[in-house]
């Protein structure tokens, strides 16, 4: 039974090892441009963690990643690769923005939930295409979601720049044309910041911090996903399909049904990814709306080994890295793309380490079984 704990320890250790290993490897890049890795990492820690507002920014950075990590992990859990979170969140954010600026005069208690719902709906719609193509026509979801990402970029561009462009904006001095962006969202559609709530505990956040209620909502969502996966029949079906589709089918679970529901769920979560930025910082959608959260989500999910609660931590880790990247760029002149390199190396390390560790654990468990067997053989038959 001791071995059980040992195995659990190994499972927890895997991401830690991966992080350390990738930090070591990225040190080479830092050395190559003549900086000291130790100083770079020290600066990252100091910059991110020494001040309250910095920590809050880190959590703000982590917020979209919780949702995208969850969206990707649901795909992984059922054996599908949702590379399309990227496009799904852009479409979701646009639909939320549309509901935010086109509807006026609703009280916030109705408007805000409606806007969030629209975000989820947008992500869901965009995830329906690849899963429909997969279930009905056998198109591999990896290829179709990649194509849909590119299609969504152009579509959003078109919608923002041509259809819903804000014609009321004032011309900025010296620029001949108006900016490509949507009208501003109604105040009733915006998500309140956490400042007031934290103020109750004597924590004062400055105004330039946009940490908002999407962060606690993300944690709650992670908990709900965990419950869904581990304690409900559908979650069980989803995991069973992910680990052996044929066996699941044989016992009466319809993998296609699970795929569709699971993927729509993944898309709905993806639709929430961009909302923290949209409904607190931006207040409108423009061509500079943040990209790549979908791909970051892949890294977040992998580091957390697709565990919903682990995703909270790995999202915060990536929020920390992003904050730290700003630190090393401003304070040390190290390009912030350092962090992209680190992130890529982390993905590779975690999958390699997890693979090696799983093989090792499997061997351990086999051994356990064999010991039981041999004791069975040595005892006289009953």
């Amino acid at each position: 039974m001791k071995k059980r704990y040992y195995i659990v320890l190994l499972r927890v250790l895997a991401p830690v090892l991966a992080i350390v290993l990738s930090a070591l490897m990225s040190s080479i890049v830092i050395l190559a441009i003549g900086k000291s890795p130790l100083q770079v990492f020290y600066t990252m820690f100091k910059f991110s963690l020494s001040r309250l507002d910095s920590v809050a920014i880190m959590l703000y950075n982590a917020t979209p990643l919780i949702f995208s990590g969850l969206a990707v992990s649901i795909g992984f859990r059922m054996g599908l690769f949702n590379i399309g979170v990227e496009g799904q969140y852009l479409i979701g954010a646009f639909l939320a923005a549309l509901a935010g600026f086109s509807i006026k005069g609703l009280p916030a208690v109705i408007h805000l939930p409606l806007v969030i719902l629209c975000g989820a709906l947008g992500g869901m719609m965009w995830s329906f295409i690849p899963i429909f193509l997969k279930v009905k026509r056998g198109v591999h979801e990896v290829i179709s979601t990649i194509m849909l990402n590119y299609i969504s970029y152009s579509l959003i561009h078109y919608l923002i720049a041509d259809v819903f462009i804000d014609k009321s904006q004032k011309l900025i001095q010296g620029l001949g044309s108006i900016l490509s962006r949507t009208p501003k969202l109604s105040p009733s559609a915006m998500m309140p910041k956490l400042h007031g709530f934290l103020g109750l505990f004597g924590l004062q956040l400055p105004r330039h911090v946009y940490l908002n209620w999407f962060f606690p909502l993300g944690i709650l969502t992670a908990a709900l996903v965990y419950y869904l996966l581990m304690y409900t029949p559908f979650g069980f079906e989803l995991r069973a399909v992910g680990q052996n589709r044929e066996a699941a089918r044989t016992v009466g679970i319809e993998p296609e049904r699970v795929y569709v529901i699971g993927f729509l769920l993944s898309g709905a979560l993806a639709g929430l990814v961009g909302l923290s930025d949209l409904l607190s910082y931006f207040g409108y959608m423009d061509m500079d709306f943040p990209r790549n959260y979908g791909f970051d989500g892949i890294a977040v999910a992998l580091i957390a080994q697709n565990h919903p609660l682990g995703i909270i931590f790995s999202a915060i880790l990536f929020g920390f890295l992003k904050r730290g990247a700003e630190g090393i760029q401003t304070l040390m002149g190290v390009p912030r793309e350092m962090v992209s390199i680190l992130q890529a190396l982390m993905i590779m390390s975690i999958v390699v380490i997890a693979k090696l560790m799983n093989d090792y654990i499997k061997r351990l468990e086999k051994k356990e079984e064999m010991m039981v067997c041999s004791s069975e053989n040595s005892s006289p038959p009953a």
Partner: protein
Amino acid sequence: MDKAVVLRGITKRFPGIVANDRIDLEVEKGEIHAIVGENGAGKSTLMKILAGIYQPDEGEIYIFGKKEKITSPGRAIELKIGMVHQHFMLVDRFTVLENIILGAEKRLGIALDEKKCRKAVEELLSLYNFSLNLDARVEEISVGQAQRVEILKVLYRGADILVLDEPTAVLAPQEVKELFNNLRRLKGEGKTIIFISHKLDEVLEIADRITVLRRGRVEGTVLPSRVTKEDLARMMVGKPVMMKLDKEPVNAGDVLLSIEDLVVKESSGKPIVNGVSLKIRGGEIYGIAGIEGNGQKELAEAIIGLREASSGRITACGRDITGLSIKEIRDLGVAFIPEDRHRQGLVLPMKVWENMMLGYHTKKEFLKGKSLNLKAIRRFTKNKVEEYGVRLSSIEQPIEGLSGGNQQKVILGRELSREPKVIVASQPTRGLDVGAAEFVHRELLKMRKKGRAILLISADLEEVLSIADRVGVMYNGKITAEFRPEEVTPEDIGVYMLGGDVKAGEGK
């Protein structure tokens, strides 16, 4: 004269198990040497060591008198050892010719010299009097032909020692005869043949000498003229095998499963089950014998709803179940023991208790509101594990860590404990050791006694004949003959397994 193969003290350990324990073996040049043993006795491991796939932990190997280390499959080929695997190692989408020459191509610069390759293979064909279409794709040819491709592959590489791993497992009795003729011809040309099997009749017929393995050790080497089948069986198992099962007479009840004119088509549109009709009553075991690939698997899958019936009707427990979903069919009381445990029966990385509720996870007793009642599921699993004597360290263990027999017990526990009325068991004892197979048989007979209707599909003729009340032979998608087991011999059935045409050499 030097011996072809000499093994001295070969030991191979895997984590937690000694697969080969100080094996000594001598194979004379030009003989057919059979190696027999139960599943798990270490035959395959030994052969993989000879083929260079595994490295022994201890021991020495002499090939034609010279001490050698067989470090890779390539080295084995250099030493003129050729392996004919039980599961064919063929590239389905390549032609027969491409498969034979792969890895030993004749070259023209960097290019493939196809003409020269073809000529060399054709010479071999005429030397050993084999017939094969070199341009057919492997996916299109019969099992017997595929086996010939495998044999040619090693001959083409100039093998003098041929290792055949369970070569008859997939063949019909008549195809076996043809294989044996071919082997004798090869022996006549001076080749040495190592023949692995657990079918005692065949071994006694073809082998010059027989070595018996048991639990990784050599039990002894004997001459076929000096031993009986029972002697060999005793050496293999270590205790007298019980060939006859206690089968009480049971009064057959109502018809619980009835199939009328069932047709199941492959995706290509070719009918794979072609008009099967049968009726099974409660308290009756209906056995289906036949060479694999004649529609048995598809028949089972059609009953359970995994495959669509393109025409015909299936009735279970008095209801027409044609076209119903798998879940609906299972809910009506049809249980399924699939032939491929790992692919269809279990979710290997999941825990034992999770596998125990698989498919029944929406049953009332496992739910609390809309959530799973994990406590009830664990309790149920513990009971079943105890009842069936599943050996494990914890029900939290992933099921992949259990042995095949224990995994099958979990499936039985899951499928049989819900009082199904109809049981479809497809190759339920495949890959199990004697003890576990016996257990499965006892459980099926228990179900029979309880008045269930059981469809037993098995490639093991002996199993079908000893346990079933009626036996149907399936050939080419049809049930071509039906017997009571006491009326027939395995040979009679063999004729029907080949479609009644005794002279035809091909299985399909």
